[in-house]
């Protein structure tokens, strides 16, 4: 049987203390990276991604969040291309199990990039 520790605080001998709610609440609940073909390269708590069109992706979570007010960060880029990128998560409203985002260049054209990555912070259900 695996061991279990129930504690409110973790204290390191030299690095200080941290309340365990910071560990739980401060950990990313979802992260993913996919390529230009919308194939997942690596992920955590992601059940699938959906290709909605060029540069347009929906990420679906394995374990749901408690509210659809998650914080989403991301970046995208290409293989040494001079075309720049913009990441937006405003294409569609997030839900407790999904977020949707688009990647585009500075001219406003959606792009499928070699590297597309997002991460999510918030509370799990």
């Amino acid at each position, binding site marked *: 049987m695996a061991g279990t520790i129930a*504690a409110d*605080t973790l*204290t390191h*001998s030299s690095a200080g203390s941290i309340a365990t709610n910071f*560990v739980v609440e401060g950990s990313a609940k979802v992260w993913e*990276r996919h390529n230009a073909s919308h194939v997942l390269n690596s992920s*955590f708590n992601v059940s699938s991604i959906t290709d909605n069109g060029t540069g347009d992706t929906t990420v679906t979570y394995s374990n749901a969040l*408690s509210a659809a007010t998650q914080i989403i960060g991301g*970046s995208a880029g290409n293989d040494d291309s001079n075309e720049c990128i913009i990441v937006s998560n405003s294409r569609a409203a997030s839900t407790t199990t999904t977020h949707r985002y688009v990647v585009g260049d500075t001219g406003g054209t959606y792009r499928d990039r070699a590297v597309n990555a997002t991460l999510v912070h918030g509370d*799990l259900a």
Partner: protein
Amino acid sequence: MSEVITDKLTGKTAAGNIDVTSEGGAATMQLQQGLAKHFINFDASSGTPTSQDSFNVSSLTDSATGKFGINVANNYSNVTYSLAGYACGINTNGFSGSQSYGLGVNLEITTTSGTHELLSFAASAYRDSKHCDAQGFGDLA
């Protein structure tokens, strides 16, 4: 209030796997997977990027205007880790047009230990931004 005083947490069944219970109590998730494996906040507005705060970053290099290399101290186990970041303007709080900044990956990541190059940009021109943040998530070696 309970408190654990320790320098190291190690999984019992598997050393690299410690589960934590979710905020709502409905799920358990792996602690290690949710932790940022590196992050950095740097200021490049002087033309030379200067780290303000970082974790698991050994050095920061100036590749060119608006292009920065971040060297990770402890290697990832693969080259498919996830990066996120943002950059904002030089002494401005602008939101659109020429004052709109972003931070993207400029090079496809091909190494678990070396530089992954980020870029900040505005209006299709690379810029040395005032405030640049980047974080990485994935598996460490």
